[in-house]
Protein backbone atom coordinates (compact mmCIF):
# COMPACT_ATOMS: atom_id res chain seq x y z
CA UNK A 1 0.00 0.00 0.00
CA UNK A 2 1.36 3.43 -0.90
CA UNK A 3 1.85 5.44 2.28
CA UNK A 4 3.68 8.73 2.67
CA UNK A 5 5.23 8.93 6.14
CA UNK A 6 5.93 12.67 5.90
CA UNK A 7 2.36 13.61 4.95
CA UNK A 8 -0.78 12.37 6.72
CA UNK A 9 -3.27 11.57 3.99
CA UNK A 10 -6.94 12.51 4.23
CA UNK A 11 -9.74 9.97 4.04
CA UNK A 12 -9.78 8.02 0.82
CA UNK A 13 -11.90 5.63 -1.21
CA UNK A 14 -10.47 2.32 -2.33
CA UNK A 15 -11.45 0.36 -5.45
CA UNK A 16 -10.27 -2.98 -6.71
CA UNK A 17 -9.28 -3.44 -10.36
CA UNK A 18 -9.35 -6.88 -12.01
CA UNK A 19 -5.96 -8.58 -11.88
CA UNK A 20 -6.50 -11.46 -14.31
CA UNK A 21 -4.82 -10.70 -17.64
CA UNK A 22 -7.91 -11.21 -19.79
CA UNK A 23 -10.00 -8.99 -17.52
CA UNK A 24 -7.59 -6.09 -17.10
CA UNK A 25 -9.68 -3.67 -19.17
CA UNK A 26 -13.17 -4.98 -18.39
CA UNK A 27 -15.40 -1.97 -17.87
CA UNK A 28 -12.94 0.61 -19.24
CA UNK A 29 -15.11 2.55 -21.65
CA UNK A 30 -12.68 4.81 -23.48
CA UNK A 31 -10.61 3.65 -26.42
CA UNK A 32 -6.87 3.62 -25.73
CA UNK A 33 -5.05 3.83 -29.06
CA UNK A 34 -2.29 5.82 -30.80
CA UNK A 35 -5.17 7.43 -32.71
CA UNK A 36 -5.66 9.75 -29.70
CA UNK A 37 -2.02 10.69 -29.13
CA UNK A 38 -1.24 14.38 -29.12
CA UNK A 39 -4.84 15.60 -28.86
CA UNK A 40 -5.38 19.17 -27.85
CA UNK A 41 -8.36 19.96 -25.66
CA UNK A 42 -9.29 23.63 -25.60
CA UNK A 43 -10.55 25.36 -22.47
CA UNK A 44 -14.11 25.54 -23.79
CA UNK A 45 -14.20 21.82 -24.60
CA UNK A 46 -12.78 20.69 -21.30
CA UNK A 47 -14.63 18.89 -18.54
CA UNK A 48 -11.70 18.81 -16.14
CA UNK A 49 -8.12 20.03 -15.98
CA UNK A 50 -5.35 18.60 -13.81
CA UNK A 51 -2.04 20.32 -13.07
CA UNK A 52 -0.40 22.58 -15.59
CA UNK A 53 0.26 26.32 -15.55
CA UNK A 54 -2.85 27.27 -13.60
CA UNK A 55 -1.45 25.45 -10.58
CA UNK A 56 2.11 26.64 -10.93
CA UNK A 57 3.18 23.19 -12.12
CA UNK A 58 2.80 21.81 -8.61
CA UNK A 59 1.42 18.42 -9.60
CA UNK A 60 2.97 15.08 -10.40
CA UNK A 61 2.84 11.73 -12.11
CA UNK A 62 5.21 9.31 -10.50
CA UNK A 63 6.21 5.66 -10.75
CA UNK A 64 8.23 3.71 -8.24
CA UNK A 65 9.29 0.11 -8.02
CA UNK A 66 8.54 -1.77 -4.81
CA UNK A 67 11.48 -3.66 -3.32
CA UNK A 68 9.26 -6.38 -1.82
CA UNK A 69 6.23 -8.12 -3.27
CA UNK A 70 4.32 -7.43 -0.08
CA UNK A 71 4.61 -3.67 -0.57
CA UNK A 72 2.07 -3.79 -3.40
CA UNK A 73 -1.61 -4.72 -3.17
CA UNK A 74 -2.27 -5.82 -6.71
CA UNK A 75 -5.14 -3.95 -8.37
CA UNK A 76 -5.65 -1.49 -5.51
CA UNK A 77 -6.83 1.97 -6.60
CA UNK A 78 -6.92 4.56 -3.86
CA UNK A 79 -8.61 7.89 -4.51
CA UNK A 80 -8.22 10.98 -2.36
CA UNK A 81 -10.53 13.79 -3.40
CA UNK A 82 -13.54 13.94 -5.70
CA UNK A 83 -14.30 11.38 -8.39
CA UNK A 84 -14.71 12.53 -11.99
CA UNK A 85 -18.54 12.55 -12.05
CA UNK A 86 -18.56 14.50 -8.78
CA UNK A 87 -16.81 17.61 -10.12
CA UNK A 88 -18.34 20.55 -11.97
CA UNK A 89 -17.62 20.76 -15.70
CA UNK A 90 -14.70 23.13 -16.26
CA UNK A 91 -13.04 22.26 -12.91
CA UNK A 92 -9.30 22.51 -12.49
CA UNK A 93 -7.22 20.90 -9.74
CA UNK A 94 -3.63 20.27 -8.79
CA UNK A 95 -3.15 16.52 -8.61
CA UNK A 96 -0.81 13.63 -8.16
CA UNK A 97 -0.90 10.09 -9.51
CA UNK A 98 1.51 7.57 -8.07
CA UNK A 99 1.86 4.19 -9.71
CA UNK A 100 3.74 1.55 -7.74
CA UNK A 101 4.81 -1.65 -9.47
CA UNK A 102 6.48 -4.86 -8.47
CA UNK A 103 8.02 -7.73 -10.41
CA UNK A 104 10.89 -10.07 -9.54
CA UNK A 105 13.02 -8.61 -12.36
CA UNK A 106 11.79 -5.05 -12.04
CA UNK A 107 14.35 -2.48 -10.83
CA UNK A 108 14.63 1.29 -10.44
CA UNK A 109 16.24 1.35 -13.90
CA UNK A 110 12.80 0.64 -15.36
CA UNK A 111 11.13 3.74 -13.99
CA UNK A 112 11.54 5.89 -17.14
CA UNK A 113 9.85 3.54 -19.62
CA UNK A 114 7.31 2.50 -16.97
CA UNK A 115 6.03 6.06 -16.80
CA UNK A 116 5.42 6.04 -20.53
CA UNK A 117 3.86 2.58 -20.46
CA UNK A 118 1.64 3.16 -17.44
CA UNK A 119 0.38 6.60 -18.27
CA UNK A 120 -0.81 5.61 -21.76
CA UNK A 121 -4.49 5.93 -20.79
CA UNK A 122 -3.86 9.67 -20.59
CA UNK A 123 -1.45 9.86 -23.51
CA UNK A 124 -3.50 7.64 -25.82
CA UNK A 125 -6.90 7.75 -24.15
CA UNK A 126 -9.91 8.94 -26.09
CA UNK A 127 -10.79 12.41 -24.84
CA UNK A 128 -7.64 13.00 -22.77
CA UNK A 129 -4.79 15.43 -23.34
CA UNK A 130 -1.43 14.87 -21.67
CA UNK A 131 1.42 17.33 -21.91
CA UNK A 132 4.87 17.08 -20.30
CA UNK A 133 5.84 14.82 -17.42
CA UNK A 134 6.87 14.76 -13.76
CA UNK A 135 5.86 18.03 -12.03
CA UNK A 136 5.24 19.95 -15.26
CA UNK A 137 2.47 17.53 -16.12
CA UNK A 138 -0.71 19.01 -17.58
CA UNK A 139 -3.78 16.87 -18.23
CA UNK A 140 -7.23 17.67 -19.59
CA UNK A 141 -10.33 15.59 -20.24
CA UNK A 142 -12.96 16.69 -22.72
CA UNK A 143 -16.68 17.14 -22.17
CA UNK A 144 -17.65 14.67 -24.86
CA UNK A 145 -16.17 11.61 -23.18
CA UNK A 146 -16.56 12.69 -19.54
CA UNK A 147 -19.50 10.31 -19.03
CA UNK A 148 -17.25 7.35 -19.87
CA UNK A 149 -14.76 8.12 -17.12
CA UNK A 150 -14.35 7.74 -13.40
CA UNK A 151 -11.17 7.30 -11.39
CA UNK A 152 -11.76 3.62 -10.81
CA UNK A 153 -11.77 3.00 -14.57
CA UNK A 154 -8.80 5.30 -15.18
CA UNK A 155 -6.85 3.62 -12.37
CA UNK A 156 -7.71 0.28 -13.90
CA UNK A 157 -6.49 1.54 -17.27
CA UNK A 158 -3.19 2.68 -15.74
CA UNK A 159 -2.56 -0.67 -14.08
CA UNK A 160 -3.65 -2.59 -17.16
CA UNK A 161 -1.40 -0.62 -19.52
CA UNK A 162 1.57 -0.97 -17.16
CA UNK A 163 1.10 -4.74 -17.15
CA UNK A 164 0.53 -5.31 -20.86
CA UNK A 165 3.14 -2.84 -22.08
CA UNK A 166 5.70 -3.85 -19.53
CA UNK A 167 5.54 -7.58 -18.96
CA UNK A 168 8.05 -7.40 -16.09
CA UNK A 169 5.28 -5.82 -14.01
CA UNK A 170 3.48 -8.52 -12.06
CA UNK A 171 1.70 -6.41 -9.50
CA UNK A 172 0.66 -2.80 -9.37
CA UNK A 173 -1.37 -0.32 -7.38
CA UNK A 174 -2.17 3.33 -7.81
CA UNK A 175 -2.75 6.32 -5.55
CA UNK A 176 -4.71 9.20 -7.09
CA UNK A 177 -4.77 12.53 -5.29
CA UNK A 178 -7.11 15.19 -6.67
CA UNK A 179 -6.20 18.37 -4.82
CA UNK A 180 -9.71 19.76 -4.26
CA UNK A 181 -9.98 22.30 -1.41
CA UNK A 182 -11.84 19.83 0.86
CA UNK A 183 -8.84 17.45 0.95
CA UNK A 184 -6.15 20.10 1.31
CA UNK A 185 -5.86 21.51 -2.21
CA UNK A 186 -2.52 22.49 -3.66
CA UNK A 187 -0.89 22.39 -0.24
CA UNK A 188 -1.45 18.63 0.08
CA UNK A 189 -0.06 17.90 -3.38
CA UNK A 190 2.90 20.19 -2.84
CA UNK A 191 3.79 18.59 0.49
CA UNK A 192 3.80 15.13 -1.10
CA UNK A 193 5.94 16.51 -3.93
CA UNK A 194 8.44 18.28 -1.71
CA UNK A 195 8.85 15.65 0.99
CA UNK A 196 8.73 12.47 -1.01
CA UNK A 197 8.54 12.64 -4.80
CA UNK A 198 11.15 15.27 -5.68
CA UNK A 199 13.86 13.65 -3.52
CA UNK A 200 13.21 10.37 -5.42
CA UNK A 201 13.53 12.14 -8.78
CA UNK A 202 16.69 13.90 -7.65
CA UNK A 203 18.23 10.60 -6.56
CA UNK A 204 17.34 8.99 -9.91
CA UNK A 205 18.76 11.93 -11.89
CA UNK A 206 21.92 12.01 -9.78
CA UNK A 207 22.46 8.30 -10.43
CA UNK A 208 21.99 8.86 -14.16
CA UNK A 209 24.25 11.93 -14.24
CA UNK A 210 26.87 10.10 -12.22
CA UNK A 211 27.13 7.26 -14.73
CA UNK A 212 30.17 7.51 -17.00
CA UNK A 213 30.65 5.77 -20.34
CA UNK A 214 33.48 3.79 -18.74
CA UNK A 215 31.14 2.48 -16.03
CA UNK A 216 28.97 0.42 -18.35
CA UNK A 217 29.63 -2.72 -20.39
CA UNK A 218 27.40 -1.88 -23.33
CA UNK A 219 25.88 1.13 -25.06
CA UNK A 220 22.51 1.19 -26.80
CA UNK A 221 21.42 2.27 -30.24
CA UNK A 222 18.15 3.51 -31.71
CA UNK A 223 16.87 3.49 -35.28
CA UNK A 224 13.36 4.78 -34.63
CA UNK A 225 13.99 7.70 -37.00
CA UNK A 226 15.11 5.55 -39.93
CA UNK A 227 11.65 6.05 -41.39
CA UNK A 228 12.80 9.60 -42.13
CA UNK A 229 16.55 9.18 -42.26
CA UNK A 230 17.17 5.65 -43.57
CA UNK A 231 20.88 5.49 -42.64
CA UNK A 232 20.71 7.22 -39.27
CA UNK A 233 21.80 5.32 -36.17
CA UNK A 234 21.62 7.02 -32.79
CA UNK A 235 24.21 6.01 -30.17
CA UNK A 236 22.96 6.18 -26.60
CA UNK A 237 25.57 6.16 -23.85
CA UNK A 238 25.44 7.39 -20.26
CA UNK A 239 27.05 10.61 -21.45
CA UNK A 240 25.14 10.98 -24.69
CA UNK A 241 21.37 11.13 -24.60
CA UNK A 242 19.57 10.77 -27.92
CA UNK A 243 19.05 14.07 -29.75
CA UNK A 244 15.30 13.96 -29.46
CA UNK A 245 15.59 13.97 -25.67
CA UNK A 246 12.90 11.33 -25.25
CA UNK A 247 15.10 8.67 -23.70
CA UNK A 248 17.97 8.30 -21.27
CA UNK A 249 20.62 5.59 -21.17
CA UNK A 250 18.66 3.74 -18.48
CA UNK A 251 15.48 4.22 -20.47
CA UNK A 252 17.11 2.67 -23.54
CA UNK A 253 18.40 -0.23 -21.43
CA UNK A 254 14.92 -0.96 -20.12
CA UNK A 255 13.35 -0.57 -23.57
CA UNK A 256 15.71 -3.20 -24.97
CA UNK A 257 14.98 -5.54 -22.07
CA UNK A 258 11.26 -5.55 -22.74
CA UNK A 259 11.47 -5.38 -26.53
CA UNK A 260 14.78 -6.92 -27.63
CA UNK A 261 13.75 -6.96 -31.29
CA UNK A 262 12.46 -3.39 -31.40
CA UNK A 263 14.02 -0.22 -32.73
CA UNK A 264 16.35 0.08 -29.71
CA UNK A 265 19.18 -2.43 -29.47
CA UNK A 266 22.36 -3.27 -27.63
CA UNK A 267 25.47 -1.64 -29.07
CA UNK A 268 28.49 -3.57 -27.77
CA UNK A 269 31.36 -1.25 -26.86
CA UNK A 270 34.11 -3.55 -28.04
CA UNK A 271 37.68 -2.35 -27.84
CA UNK A 272 38.14 1.34 -27.06
CA UNK A 273 40.13 2.68 -30.02
CA UNK A 274 40.38 6.27 -28.82
CA UNK A 275 39.16 7.24 -25.35
CA UNK A 276 39.62 10.94 -26.03
CA UNK A 277 37.51 11.08 -29.20
CA UNK A 278 35.17 8.38 -27.91
CA UNK A 279 35.77 5.78 -30.60
CA UNK A 280 34.84 2.16 -29.94
CA UNK A 281 35.23 -0.82 -32.25
CA UNK A 282 31.81 -2.23 -31.31
CA UNK A 283 30.10 1.11 -31.97
CA UNK A 284 31.74 1.38 -35.41
CA UNK A 285 30.66 -2.16 -36.29
CA UNK A 286 27.06 -1.75 -35.13
CA UNK A 287 26.65 1.62 -36.82
CA UNK A 288 28.10 0.21 -40.03
CA UNK A 289 25.69 -2.74 -40.02
CA UNK A 290 22.63 -0.67 -39.15
CA UNK A 291 23.34 2.32 -41.42
CA UNK A 292 23.04 0.29 -44.62
CA UNK A 293 26.84 0.08 -44.51
CA UNK A 294 27.19 3.79 -45.16
CA UNK A 295 28.93 4.98 -41.97
CA UNK A 296 32.20 3.32 -41.00
CA UNK A 297 33.47 5.37 -38.05
CA UNK A 298 31.86 7.34 -35.25
CA UNK A 299 33.52 9.51 -32.64
CA UNK A 300 31.14 9.94 -29.74
CA UNK A 301 32.78 13.11 -28.43
CA UNK A 302 33.38 15.07 -31.61
CA UNK A 303 31.35 17.26 -33.93
CA UNK A 304 34.27 17.83 -36.28
CA UNK A 305 35.61 14.39 -37.10
CA UNK A 306 33.28 11.47 -37.80
CA UNK A 307 30.37 12.70 -35.68
CA UNK A 308 27.23 10.68 -35.26
CA UNK A 309 24.67 11.00 -38.07
CA UNK A 310 21.63 13.19 -37.51
CA UNK A 311 17.96 12.40 -38.00
CA UNK A 312 15.92 15.61 -37.86
CA UNK A 313 14.46 15.90 -34.39
CA UNK A 314 17.56 17.21 -32.62
CA UNK A 315 16.78 19.99 -30.16
CA UNK A 316 20.01 21.92 -30.75
CA UNK A 317 23.09 21.75 -32.95
CA UNK A 318 26.84 22.26 -32.84
CA UNK A 319 28.44 23.68 -35.99
CA UNK A 320 31.98 24.57 -37.06
CA UNK A 321 32.74 28.23 -37.83
CA UNK A 322 35.79 28.18 -40.14
CA UNK A 323 36.70 31.86 -39.77
CA UNK A 324 36.97 31.39 -36.01
CA UNK A 325 38.20 27.79 -36.03
CA UNK A 326 35.64 27.40 -33.29
CA UNK A 327 32.32 25.75 -32.69
CA UNK A 328 28.96 27.44 -32.30
CA UNK A 329 25.87 26.08 -30.60
CA UNK A 330 22.29 26.94 -31.46
CA UNK A 331 18.96 25.62 -30.23
CA UNK A 332 15.67 25.27 -32.07
CA UNK A 333 14.07 28.24 -30.36
CA UNK A 334 16.59 30.78 -31.61
CA UNK A 335 15.11 32.33 -34.74
CA UNK A 336 18.02 34.48 -35.93
CA UNK A 337 21.02 33.78 -38.12
CA UNK A 338 24.16 32.16 -36.73
CA UNK A 339 27.72 33.27 -37.57
CA UNK A 340 27.76 30.86 -40.53
CA UNK A 341 24.89 32.80 -42.11
CA UNK A 342 22.27 30.13 -41.54
CA UNK A 343 19.44 30.13 -39.04
CA UNK A 344 18.62 26.92 -37.14
CA UNK A 345 16.03 25.93 -39.72
CA UNK A 346 18.43 26.06 -42.66
CA UNK A 347 21.29 24.51 -40.68
CA UNK A 348 19.04 21.66 -39.57
CA UNK A 349 17.83 21.15 -43.12
CA UNK A 350 21.44 20.68 -44.20
CA UNK A 351 22.42 18.45 -41.26
CA UNK A 352 19.44 16.13 -41.12
CA UNK A 353 18.68 13.07 -43.18
CA UNK A 354 21.13 10.51 -41.82
CA UNK A 355 24.37 11.60 -43.45
CA UNK A 356 27.64 11.93 -41.55
CA UNK A 357 28.25 15.66 -41.82
CA UNK A 358 31.69 16.43 -40.41
CA UNK A 359 31.63 19.74 -38.60
CA UNK A 360 28.04 19.54 -37.42
CA UNK A 361 26.31 17.53 -34.74
CA UNK A 362 22.77 17.33 -33.42
CA UNK A 363 22.31 17.74 -29.69
CA UNK A 364 19.62 17.24 -27.10
CA UNK A 365 19.15 20.16 -24.74
CA UNK A 366 20.92 18.06 -22.09
CA UNK A 367 23.89 16.90 -24.21
CA UNK A 368 26.14 19.85 -23.31
CA UNK A 369 25.75 18.89 -19.64
CA UNK A 370 27.83 15.79 -20.32
CA UNK A 371 31.35 15.85 -18.91
CA UNK A 372 32.69 14.59 -22.24
CA UNK A 373 30.79 17.10 -24.35
CA UNK A 374 32.83 17.65 -27.56
CA UNK A 375 35.92 16.55 -25.65
CA UNK A 376 37.58 15.45 -28.89
CA UNK A 377 37.27 18.96 -30.34
CA UNK A 378 38.46 20.83 -27.27
CA UNK A 379 35.25 20.83 -25.25
CA UNK A 380 34.03 24.17 -23.94
CA UNK A 381 37.32 25.86 -24.84
CA UNK A 382 36.30 25.48 -28.51
CA UNK A 383 32.80 26.94 -28.10
CA UNK A 384 32.82 30.54 -29.32
CA UNK A 385 29.20 31.48 -29.98
CA UNK A 386 25.71 30.58 -28.80
CA UNK A 387 22.35 32.34 -28.39
CA UNK A 388 22.08 34.19 -25.10
CA UNK A 389 18.96 32.31 -23.95
CA UNK A 390 20.56 28.93 -24.58
CA UNK A 391 23.68 30.05 -22.74
CA UNK A 392 21.60 31.00 -19.71
CA UNK A 393 19.84 27.62 -19.85
CA UNK A 394 23.19 25.84 -19.80
CA UNK A 395 24.82 28.20 -17.30
CA UNK A 396 25.42 25.56 -14.65
CA UNK A 397 27.41 23.31 -16.97
CA UNK A 398 29.55 25.92 -18.74
CA UNK A 399 32.89 26.33 -16.93
CA UNK A 400 32.79 29.58 -15.00
CA UNK A 401 36.02 30.89 -16.50
CA UNK A 402 34.60 30.53 -20.04
CA UNK A 403 30.99 31.58 -19.57
CA UNK A 404 31.45 35.30 -20.18
CA UNK A 405 33.90 34.69 -23.00
CA UNK A 406 31.44 32.91 -25.26
CA UNK A 407 29.94 35.43 -27.69
CA UNK A 408 26.19 35.65 -28.19
CA UNK A 409 23.92 37.45 -30.64
CA UNK A 410 24.54 40.54 -28.50
CA UNK A 411 28.12 40.56 -29.78
CA UNK A 412 26.69 39.85 -33.21
CA UNK A 413 26.90 37.21 -35.89
CA UNK A 414 29.57 38.88 -37.95
CA UNK A 415 32.68 36.72 -37.67
CA UNK A 416 35.02 39.72 -37.63
CA UNK A 417 33.17 41.25 -34.69
CA UNK A 418 33.24 37.89 -32.89
CA UNK A 419 36.97 37.51 -33.62
CA UNK A 420 37.62 40.89 -32.03
CA UNK A 421 35.49 39.98 -29.04
CA UNK A 422 37.28 36.66 -28.51
CA UNK A 423 40.62 38.44 -28.55
CA UNK A 424 39.36 41.17 -26.24
CA UNK A 425 38.04 38.77 -23.59
CA UNK A 426 40.99 36.42 -24.06
CA UNK A 427 38.88 33.38 -24.96
CA UNK A 428 41.02 30.24 -24.53
CA UNK A 429 40.59 29.43 -28.22
CA UNK A 430 42.93 32.32 -29.05
CA UNK A 431 45.90 30.68 -27.34
CA UNK A 432 44.92 27.01 -27.59
CA UNK A 433 43.79 26.73 -31.20
CA UNK A 434 44.63 29.89 -33.13
CA UNK A 435 48.08 30.35 -34.61
CA UNK A 436 49.81 33.66 -33.82
CA UNK A 437 46.50 35.12 -32.76
CA UNK A 438 44.74 34.19 -36.00
CA UNK A 439 42.19 31.46 -36.62
CA UNK A 440 43.35 28.86 -39.15
CA UNK A 441 40.33 27.11 -40.65
CA UNK A 442 40.37 23.35 -41.01
CA UNK A 443 39.26 21.91 -44.32
CA UNK A 444 36.22 19.84 -43.43
CA UNK A 445 35.56 16.87 -45.75
CA UNK A 446 32.21 16.62 -47.53
CA UNK A 447 29.35 14.54 -46.11
CA UNK A 448 30.18 10.84 -45.71
CA UNK A 449 33.76 11.37 -46.95
CA UNK A 450 36.83 10.38 -44.96
CA UNK A 451 39.33 12.80 -43.49
CA UNK A 452 42.43 12.91 -45.74
CA UNK A 453 44.72 11.81 -42.89
CA UNK A 454 42.64 8.68 -42.34
CA UNK A 455 42.07 7.57 -45.92
Amino acid at each position, binding site marked *: MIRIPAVPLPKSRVFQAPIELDELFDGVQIEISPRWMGQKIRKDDMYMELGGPKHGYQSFIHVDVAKEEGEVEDGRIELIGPDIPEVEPGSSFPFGIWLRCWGPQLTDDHVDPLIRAGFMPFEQGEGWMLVNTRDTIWIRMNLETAHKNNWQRMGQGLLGMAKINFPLVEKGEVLIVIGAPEVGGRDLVQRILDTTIRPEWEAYDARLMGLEDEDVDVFYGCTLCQTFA*PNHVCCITPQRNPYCGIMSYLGAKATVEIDPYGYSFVMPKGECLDPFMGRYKGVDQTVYERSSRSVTKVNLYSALRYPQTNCGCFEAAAFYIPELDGIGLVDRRYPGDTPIGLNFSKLAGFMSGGNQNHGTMGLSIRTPKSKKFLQGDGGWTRIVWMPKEYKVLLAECIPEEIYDKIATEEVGTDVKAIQEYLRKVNHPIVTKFWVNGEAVPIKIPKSNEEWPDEK
Partner: protein
Amino acid sequence: MKSEVPSPEKEQNEGWHRSYDEKPAFSRSDLLRTLEKFLQYAGYELARSVPIGFMRPDLTARRSEGQKNFEMIFVVREGVNQAVEGFRELAAAKCFRKDVPDYVLALPPVSEHHLIEFLIEKEDWFFPIKDHQLQLWLVNPERDKVDCLLGWPRDDQFKHYFSNPKLAGFATYIANKATDKILAEEFG
Protein backbone atom coordinates in the same frame (compact mmCIF):
# COMPACT_ATOMS: atom_id res chain seq x y z
CA MET B 1 5.50 54.45 -37.10
CA LYS B 2 6.32 52.50 -40.21
CA SER B 3 5.49 48.83 -39.75
CA GLU B 4 7.81 46.24 -41.18
CA VAL B 5 6.20 44.34 -44.03
CA PRO B 6 7.89 41.03 -44.77
CA SER B 7 8.95 40.57 -48.35
CA PRO B 8 6.91 37.99 -50.28
CA GLU B 9 9.98 35.76 -50.44
CA LYS B 10 10.54 35.93 -46.67
CA GLU B 11 6.87 35.29 -46.03
CA GLN B 12 6.86 32.26 -48.28
CA ASN B 13 9.91 30.74 -46.68
CA GLU B 14 9.33 31.45 -43.02
CA GLY B 15 5.63 31.44 -42.34
CA TRP B 16 2.51 29.47 -43.20
CA HIS B 17 2.35 27.84 -46.61
CA ARG B 18 6.11 28.13 -46.77
CA SER B 19 8.03 26.31 -49.39
CA TYR B 20 10.38 23.55 -48.23
CA ASP B 21 13.64 22.85 -49.92
CA GLU B 22 12.97 19.29 -51.02
CA LYS B 23 13.11 17.20 -54.12
CA PRO B 24 10.60 14.37 -54.51
CA ALA B 25 12.39 11.11 -53.70
CA PHE B 26 9.71 8.94 -55.33
CA SER B 27 7.03 9.47 -57.92
CA ARG B 28 3.36 9.30 -57.01
CA SER B 29 2.92 6.15 -59.05
CA ASP B 30 5.77 4.44 -57.12
CA LEU B 31 4.17 5.45 -53.84
CA LEU B 32 0.76 4.24 -54.99
CA ARG B 33 2.13 0.87 -56.11
CA THR B 34 3.87 0.29 -52.75
CA LEU B 35 0.80 1.38 -50.83
CA GLU B 36 -1.50 -0.89 -52.85
CA LYS B 37 0.78 -3.86 -52.28
CA PHE B 38 0.93 -3.10 -48.57
CA LEU B 39 -2.83 -2.80 -48.21
CA GLN B 40 -3.45 -6.03 -50.10
CA TYR B 41 -0.92 -7.77 -47.86
CA ALA B 42 -2.84 -6.43 -44.85
CA GLY B 43 -6.01 -8.08 -46.22
CA TYR B 44 -7.63 -5.05 -47.86
CA GLU B 45 -9.51 -5.00 -51.11
CA LEU B 46 -8.74 -2.05 -53.30
CA ALA B 47 -11.75 -0.32 -54.76
CA ARG B 48 -12.10 1.88 -57.78
CA SER B 49 -11.85 5.44 -56.56
CA VAL B 50 -15.03 7.36 -57.15
CA PRO B 51 -15.38 11.09 -56.51
CA ILE B 52 -16.44 12.13 -53.03
CA GLY B 53 -17.99 15.55 -53.43
CA PHE B 54 -15.32 17.93 -54.64
CA MET B 55 -12.47 15.45 -54.57
CA ARG B 56 -11.43 12.08 -55.90
CA PRO B 57 -9.22 9.89 -53.71
CA ASP B 58 -6.11 8.29 -55.11
CA LEU B 59 -7.06 5.02 -53.50
CA THR B 60 -9.89 3.48 -51.50
CA ALA B 61 -9.45 0.25 -49.54
CA ARG B 62 -11.87 -1.94 -47.59
CA ARG B 63 -11.75 -4.91 -45.25
CA SER B 64 -14.40 -6.73 -43.22
CA GLU B 65 -13.91 -8.76 -40.10
CA GLY B 66 -17.09 -10.25 -38.67
CA GLN B 67 -19.43 -7.33 -38.03
CA LYS B 68 -16.67 -4.77 -38.43
CA ASN B 69 -16.16 -2.96 -41.71
CA PHE B 70 -13.08 -0.86 -42.29
CA GLU B 71 -12.79 1.64 -45.09
CA MET B 72 -9.85 3.88 -45.88
CA ILE B 73 -9.60 6.90 -48.16
CA PHE B 74 -6.08 7.73 -49.39
CA VAL B 75 -4.56 10.78 -50.97
CA VAL B 76 -0.99 10.27 -52.15
CA ARG B 77 1.44 13.17 -52.54
CA GLU B 78 5.17 13.46 -53.24
CA GLY B 79 6.39 15.66 -50.38
CA VAL B 80 5.82 18.19 -47.62
CA ASN B 81 5.22 20.97 -50.15
CA GLN B 82 2.07 19.16 -51.30
CA ALA B 83 0.90 18.11 -47.84
CA VAL B 84 -1.48 21.01 -47.18
CA GLU B 85 -3.18 20.41 -50.50
CA GLY B 86 -3.40 16.70 -49.70
CA PHE B 87 -4.97 17.30 -46.31
CA ARG B 88 -7.37 19.79 -47.88
CA GLU B 89 -8.56 17.05 -50.24
CA LEU B 90 -9.12 14.72 -47.30
CA ALA B 91 -10.96 17.42 -45.36
CA ALA B 92 -13.18 17.98 -48.39
CA ALA B 93 -13.97 14.25 -48.52
CA LYS B 94 -14.76 14.23 -44.82
CA CYS B 95 -17.26 17.05 -45.33
CA PHE B 96 -19.26 14.92 -47.72
CA ARG B 97 -19.14 11.53 -46.03
CA LYS B 98 -21.46 11.07 -43.07
CA ASP B 99 -19.87 7.78 -41.98
CA VAL B 100 -16.42 7.50 -40.48
CA PRO B 101 -13.81 5.94 -42.72
CA ASP B 102 -10.09 6.61 -42.13
CA TYR B 103 -8.65 9.55 -44.06
CA VAL B 104 -4.98 9.15 -44.85
CA LEU B 105 -2.39 11.31 -46.55
CA ALA B 106 0.48 9.15 -47.80
CA LEU B 107 3.88 10.78 -48.34
CA PRO B 108 7.33 9.38 -49.06
CA PRO B 109 9.90 9.41 -46.21
CA VAL B 110 10.24 13.18 -46.03
CA SER B 111 12.81 15.08 -43.97
CA GLU B 112 11.92 14.84 -40.31
CA HIS B 113 13.17 18.34 -39.77
CA HIS B 114 10.89 19.73 -42.48
CA LEU B 115 8.01 17.80 -41.05
CA ILE B 116 8.59 19.25 -37.58
CA GLU B 117 8.59 22.74 -39.09
CA PHE B 118 5.46 21.95 -41.10
CA LEU B 119 3.58 20.53 -38.13
CA ILE B 120 4.54 22.88 -35.34
CA GLU B 121 7.54 25.14 -35.64
CA LYS B 122 7.03 27.33 -38.68
CA GLU B 123 3.47 26.32 -39.36
CA ASP B 124 0.74 24.88 -37.14
CA TRP B 125 -0.82 22.07 -39.15
CA PHE B 126 -0.52 19.54 -36.34
CA PHE B 127 -3.65 20.75 -34.55
CA PRO B 128 -6.01 20.79 -37.54
CA ILE B 129 -4.77 17.32 -38.50
CA LYS B 130 -5.44 16.00 -34.98
CA ASP B 131 -8.73 17.88 -34.57
CA HIS B 132 -10.11 16.33 -37.73
CA GLN B 133 -8.53 12.95 -37.05
CA LEU B 134 -6.72 12.82 -40.34
CA GLN B 135 -3.77 10.46 -40.63
CA LEU B 136 -0.30 10.81 -42.10
CA TRP B 137 1.49 7.71 -43.37
CA LEU B 138 5.00 7.46 -44.79
CA VAL B 139 5.55 5.08 -47.70
CA ASN B 140 9.04 3.97 -48.72
CA PRO B 141 8.96 2.21 -52.13
CA GLU B 142 12.69 1.48 -52.00
CA ARG B 143 12.43 -0.52 -48.78
CA ASP B 144 8.83 -1.66 -49.22
CA LYS B 145 7.87 -0.18 -45.89
CA VAL B 146 4.85 1.74 -44.67
CA ASP B 147 4.49 3.52 -41.33
CA CYS B 148 1.83 5.56 -39.61
CA LEU B 149 3.21 8.81 -38.27
CA LEU B 150 0.15 10.74 -37.12
CA GLY B 151 -3.17 9.29 -36.00
CA TRP B 152 -3.87 5.59 -36.16
CA PRO B 153 -6.22 3.47 -38.28
CA ARG B 154 -9.44 2.19 -36.74
CA ASP B 155 -8.32 -1.27 -37.81
CA ASP B 156 -5.81 -2.02 -35.06
CA GLN B 157 -4.49 -5.03 -37.02
CA PHE B 158 -2.25 -2.60 -38.86
CA LYS B 159 0.10 -2.76 -35.88
CA HIS B 160 1.21 -6.11 -37.31
CA TYR B 161 1.90 -4.65 -40.74
CA PHE B 162 3.54 -1.28 -40.22
CA SER B 163 7.30 -1.60 -40.22
CA ASN B 164 7.59 0.49 -37.07
CA PRO B 165 4.31 0.90 -35.19
CA LYS B 166 6.06 2.82 -32.39
CA LEU B 167 6.57 5.69 -34.82
CA ALA B 168 3.03 6.81 -34.02
CA GLY B 169 4.54 8.16 -30.79
CA PHE B 170 5.81 11.03 -32.95
CA ALA B 171 2.49 12.75 -32.20
CA THR B 172 3.39 12.97 -28.53
CA TYR B 173 6.78 14.40 -29.40
CA ILE B 174 5.10 17.08 -31.51
CA ALA B 175 2.38 17.70 -28.91
CA ASN B 176 5.03 18.39 -26.26
CA LYS B 177 6.66 20.87 -28.61
CA ALA B 178 3.26 22.49 -28.99
CA THR B 179 2.91 23.27 -25.29
CA ASP B 180 4.13 26.84 -25.76
CA LYS B 181 1.53 27.40 -28.47
CA ILE B 182 -1.28 26.05 -26.31
CA LEU B 183 -0.12 28.30 -23.47
CA ALA B 184 0.03 31.31 -25.75
CA GLU B 185 -3.44 30.57 -27.10
CA GLU B 186 -5.01 30.32 -23.66
CA PHE B 187 -2.95 32.51 -21.41
CA GLY B 188 -1.67 35.09 -23.88
